[in-house]
C-alpha cells in the first residue's frame, strides 16, 4: 500500500452559463465521464458539491462565477494519465475550447498527498498559485515533468569500484 497518492486540480472558465445551449453538450456528458473516472483503475476520490454528483456548483474564486474546479486523487500519475488520455475522457478533452476559455496561466496542478488525505479547494487553489509563481517543482507540477512520490524508493547508487 503506497503512503502517498497523487492529487490533481484543474480550473477552467466556462464560455457561457452552465444551463445554456453552449455548455449543453458538456453538461450532458458529465455523468458518463464522472462514472468512468469513478470506475477507472487507480481512482481514489473526487470532489463533489452538495448535490453529490459533480463539482460544477463549487466556485474556487467567489469573485468569478464562471470559474469551475475539478479536484481528484489517484494512486499514481500513470493512473490519472490513462484516464485522462486513454479513455473516453479524451472525447471531451478534444472539445475543451467549445466550452472553456483559454487560460494564459497554469490551470492544472499535480502534487502528492498522504494516502487518505482529501485536499480542500483552498489547498488546491494554492497549488495552482504555487505553479504560476514558481513554475514546476515537487510541491506542484504537471504531466510535462512529473515528480516522483515522496516515498518512492530511490535507485541505489552503483557501487564504486
Amino acid at each position: 500500500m503506497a503512503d502517498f497518492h497523487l492529487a490533481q486540480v484543474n480550473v477552467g472558465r466556462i464560455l457561457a452559463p452552465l444551463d445554456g445551449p453552449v455548455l449543453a453538450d458538456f453538461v450532458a456528458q458529465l455523468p458518463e465521464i464522472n462514472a468512468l473516472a469513478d470506475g477507472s483503475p487507480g481512482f481514489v476520490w473526487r470532489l463533489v458539491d452538495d448535490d453529490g454528483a459533480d463539482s460544477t456548483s463549487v466556485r474556487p474564486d467567489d469573485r468569478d462565477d464562471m470559474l469551475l474546479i475539478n479536484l481528484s486523487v489517484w494512486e499514481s500519475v500513470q493512473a490519472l494519465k490513462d484516464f485522462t488520455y486513454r479513455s473516453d475522457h479524451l472525447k471531451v478533452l478534444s472539445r475543451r475550447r467549445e466550452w472553456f476559455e483559454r487560460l494564459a496561466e497554469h490551470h492544472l496542478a499535480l502534487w502528492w498527498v498522504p494516502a487518505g488525505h482529501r485536499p480542500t479547494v483552498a489547498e488546491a487553489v494554492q497549488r495552482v498559485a504555487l505553479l504560476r509563481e514558481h513554475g514546476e517543482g515537487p510541491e506542484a507540477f504537471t504531466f510535462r515533468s512529473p515528480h516522483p512520490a515522496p516515498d518512492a524508493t530511490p535507485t541505489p547508487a552503483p557501487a564504486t569500484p
Partner: protein
Amino acid sequence: MSNDNTDSDDAVLDTVAVLGDPVRRKLYRVVAAGPGAVGRDAAAAAAGVSRSLAAFHLDRLVEAGLLTVTYQRLSGRSGPGAGRPAKLYQRAPGERELSLPPRSYDSVARLLADVVERAGLDRELQSAAREAGAALAAEPAGSCRADPEAELRERGYEPYWDQAVLRLHNCPFRSLAEEFPALICGMNLALIEGLLPGRADGEGWTATLDPLPVPDGCCVALAPKGEI
C-alpha cells in the same frame, strides 16, 4: 565539433539497410501490419516464401532491432505434450527518422503545436484539418477513389478490423500526440472525418475518439454506416 549526428544517422542507415532485401521488407510489412504477434508459418505464407527462409529473415530483423520476439503456447494446449511455445514476432517500439540532407520538421511541428495550444486554437486547427482531409480525398483527379480502409492504409494508419469497428494500429503523429494529446488527437479525428465523405462508400462512415487503454495505436476508431 561533435559527430553525434553522423553517428545517429549511421545507426539509422544501418537499420534501414537491413530492409533493402525485398523478402525481408515484405516480412517486416506483414508483421508490422497488425496489432498481434505473428508466427513464422503465418508470416511465411503471407510473404509467399518458405518457412526456413522466413525464419532466417525474421531473425535478421530482430537483430536489427526492427522486430521483437515473444514466446506463446498455441491456444488450447498445455501441460506435457503441448510442445514448445511458438516463437512470435511483432514490431519493435521506437521511431527511426532519416533525412538527406538533414531536416528538422519535427522540432518545427513541436513549436507550432505549443503555440497553437497556448493560443487555444484547437477549433481553428480542427477546421483546417477537416479541410485538409477533404482536399486529400479530392485528389488525384480522375483516378478511381479508394474506400476509407484503403485510404487509411495508404496514409500509414495500418487499419485492422476489431469486429465491426475499424481500428488503426499506427498513429502517424505518435510523439506529437503524446505531448499534446487533446490538440493532436482532436486534429487527427477532424482530418479523418474530413477525408471520409469523399471516399468510395465513405458517405455513411463515422469516426470517433475511442482510445484503447494500451499506449499504442491511433485513438480514432471508425465504423461503416450504422455500426457505432
